């Protein structure tokens, strides 16, 4: 081969330009991650710092464990989407008649089934009467849900079904604790309207995050996840997790807190500023007709399409409308979804309405197969709907009664979310 030939080859490569040789950015509707539009450069910088921490894999030398479920936030929330069943959290407890015992002396309520080498991992005790498995939820758009005022949730709730629609959404009321009060106080210190969250109802606080709405805001959720899922201490939860059945309080020997307040703040900011999941084909006629069916058969009574944030120091979250398809309230889903496990203010059959935004994108992040509902038991929208009992039973019956055409339209609508 002559010099000229080699030169021509190089010119050919160069003429294609570097961009042609590089993988492109996934289209907006292929991914969930991304910042809310309109953020300042410094806000984007903090978001990215939080993103890095969210993805950071921690080792035992960083304080991971000694008992844990995952080694990074992203292991559970791949691509900020709903997780894979292999990272399901297991929670257990027992019914002792007048209350549900979280079995703390057995390592409850959350199982940490993984452990550092040489340390005993937990197992579900035989005495447990209720065991549930919880697939990690998507984390996109959480800032919007976090910014909704308590008054909105109170207005949406209808515990006695006063409107007679068969839906009785209930606030998840949590007993006061130092952790809840600290989480609320820290967040209130940055709020233009400090009283808009942390409202006491009958002396208790309103939960809004988690499958059973066990946490009051994203700070509470984040430090709880660091602690219960990864065995990492923070300023708000300073004691390492240990397996009580190991018979010793010795843990990992890493100085506490293992995660600094700055890291926690960045991760919380990251979660607050993740964009809402993108819609697809929202203007398609079938999709719009499907949305009408969604409302007609009562799905929208719990999966409320539109909410509005309250006042926020983050301009991008300040009093904006968004479409999560949730009311953030607890609903009795009947025996079909009753795992016999109660938590916080939620009974064994009660679940907080999961947001439906992004639901059709999740299988792209679950290894190519959708795992729907709280534990991934449903593999399709139809199967998920069939599991709706209790307050959801009427909608399920409505779905069963739909014409084949309307069923397809409804599914097209769900696929657009």
């Amino acid at each position: 081969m002559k010099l000229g030939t080699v030169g021509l080859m190089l010119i050919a490569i160069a003429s294609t330009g570097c961009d042609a040789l590089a993988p492109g950015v996934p289209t907006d509707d292929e991914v969930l991650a991304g910042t809310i539009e309109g953020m300042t450069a410094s806000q984007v910088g903090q978001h990215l710092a939080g993103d890095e921490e969210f993805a950071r894999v921690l080792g035992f030398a960083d304080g991971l464990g000694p008992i844990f479920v995952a080694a990074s936030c992203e292991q559970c929330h791949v691509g900020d989407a709903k997780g894979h069943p292999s990272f399901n959290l297991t929670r257990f407890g027992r019914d002792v008649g007048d209350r549900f015992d979280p079995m703390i002396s057995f390592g409850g309520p959350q199982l940490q089934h993984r452990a550092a080498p040489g340390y005993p991992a937990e197992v579900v005790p035989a005495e447990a009467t209720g065991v549930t498995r919880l697939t990690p939820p998507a984390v996109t758009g959480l800032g919007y849900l976090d910014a909704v005022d308590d008054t909105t949730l109170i207005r949406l709730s209808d515990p006695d079904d006063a409107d007679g629609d068969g839906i009785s959404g209930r606030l998840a009321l949590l007993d006061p604790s130092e952790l809840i009060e600290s989480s609320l106080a820290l967040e209130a210190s940055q709020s233009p309207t400090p009283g808009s969250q942390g409202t006491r109802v009958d002396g208790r606080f309103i939960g809004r995050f988690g499958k059973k709405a066990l946490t009051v805001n994203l700070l509470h959720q984040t430090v709880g996840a660091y602690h219960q899922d990864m065995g990492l201490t923070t300023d708000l939860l300073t004691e390492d997790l240990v397996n009580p059945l190991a018979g010793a309080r010795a843990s990992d020997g890493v100085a506490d807190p293992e995660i600094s307040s700055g890291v926690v703040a960045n991760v919380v900011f990251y979660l607050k500023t993740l964009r809402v999941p993108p819609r697809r084909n929202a203007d398609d006629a079938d999709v719009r007709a499907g949305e009408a069916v969604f409302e007609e058969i009562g799905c929208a009574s719990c999966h409320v399409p539109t909410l509005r944030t309250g006042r926020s120091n983050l301009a991008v979250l300040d009093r904006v409308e968004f479409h999560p398809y949730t009311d953030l309230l607890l609903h009795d889903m009947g025996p079909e979804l009753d795992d016999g496990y109660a938590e916080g203010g939620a009974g064994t059959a009660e679940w907080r309405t999961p947001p439906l935004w992004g639901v059709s994108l999740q299988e792209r992040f679950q290894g190519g197969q959708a795992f729907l509902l709280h534990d991934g038991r449903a593999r399709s929208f139809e199967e998920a709907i069939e599991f709706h009992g209790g307050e959801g039973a009427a909608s399920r019956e409505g779905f069963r009664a739909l014409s084949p055409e309307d069923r397809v339209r409804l599914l097209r609508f769900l696929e657009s979310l």
Partner: protein
Amino acid sequence: MRAGPFGVAAFMTLGVASAALAQSADTTLAQEGIFNRPFITSSGGTSIGGYLEGNTNWFVEDGVGEGFSMELRRFNIFLFASVSPRVRFLSELEFEHGTEEIALETALIDVRLHPALVFRAGILLPPVGYFNQNHDGPRWDFVERPLVSTEIIPSTLSEVGAGLYGKAALGSSVVSYDVYATNGLGNGIVNNAEGRTYIPAGKSEEQFAEDNNGTPSLSARVAVRRPAIGELGLSWYGGAYNSFQREGEAVDASRRVDLVALDAGVRLGPVAFRGEAVMARVQLPESLGEVFGERQWGGHLDAVVPIWRPKLAGYRDAVVALGGRVEHVDFNRGRFASTGRPIGDSVTGVVAGLSFRPTDETVFRANYRFDWSRDLVGNDRTRAAGLQLGFATYF
């Protein structure tokens, strides 16, 4: 890609088939790699040499890039001494990324009793695969080391130990062997910040001073070379890696890491092929869960063909070559208990390259590489691609 054992078999088949068709190959045994360096002579007193390699990087991952950067990868210094006609000493001091990482990679003494029996002791390179003993940058036509040789075989793996090696003629072939006992790898294989079984993290400077579990690891390689064909090697490395005893008391179960590698280097007409495949098995505490892989595998296949020998004044041996590499590493060959589906955690790469060697000892390289990563749960997670320009030279 989930070829697993089939992939290994494919690499083996390719190696053997290539060997059968080969026409010529270089004549250096893999085990002689550390002495097959310029400026190291078998006679005389002490000599010094080394190599230097650096490159540029421009990479984009899923449309997002960090821009253009340059790095000086390695500056390695060899010190060689022919202590006597039958005793020789070699050391290699590595400076990686300037002085970010300084490591004594080799410091050994060889005592030749017979060509078929040489005693070696010191900080040595266990003979697992081909690359570990032949990792000098100027030898390779690609900027990056093969993934399998850095992510599963933890090259450069250098350990304290001793053993024997040698070679003997067998008809028209040469058969070589290496067998060593070394301190082995440590707890980092699982106690790491990778969130997965990661054999390279088992390397530890502390292992140069003391074995963490008091039980040496063993490594061995047998190879056959036919002068007109090439070399085919089969190697094994294994031993306990965790600190299972303390002050004579058992504090944990003993757990092993084992690697079995097959390597081949042949020439088919003008095309030189070099490949390596490895299967790893790591015993794990059950408490780490399925996220940590008990079985891993990987392989690479390089092909390099000279395309032009320019007539340049003062550079009689100058050559321009085209190269290609395919490679794959699977960090976890298991299946999820929850879904029955295969666990992901793998990366596949292809590299196209152009190299220019003004002399045998110096190479300038231009590489384009494309990687596909599959995350743990099996999503096609990232696509990354980039251009690299680099150089490497012995001195």
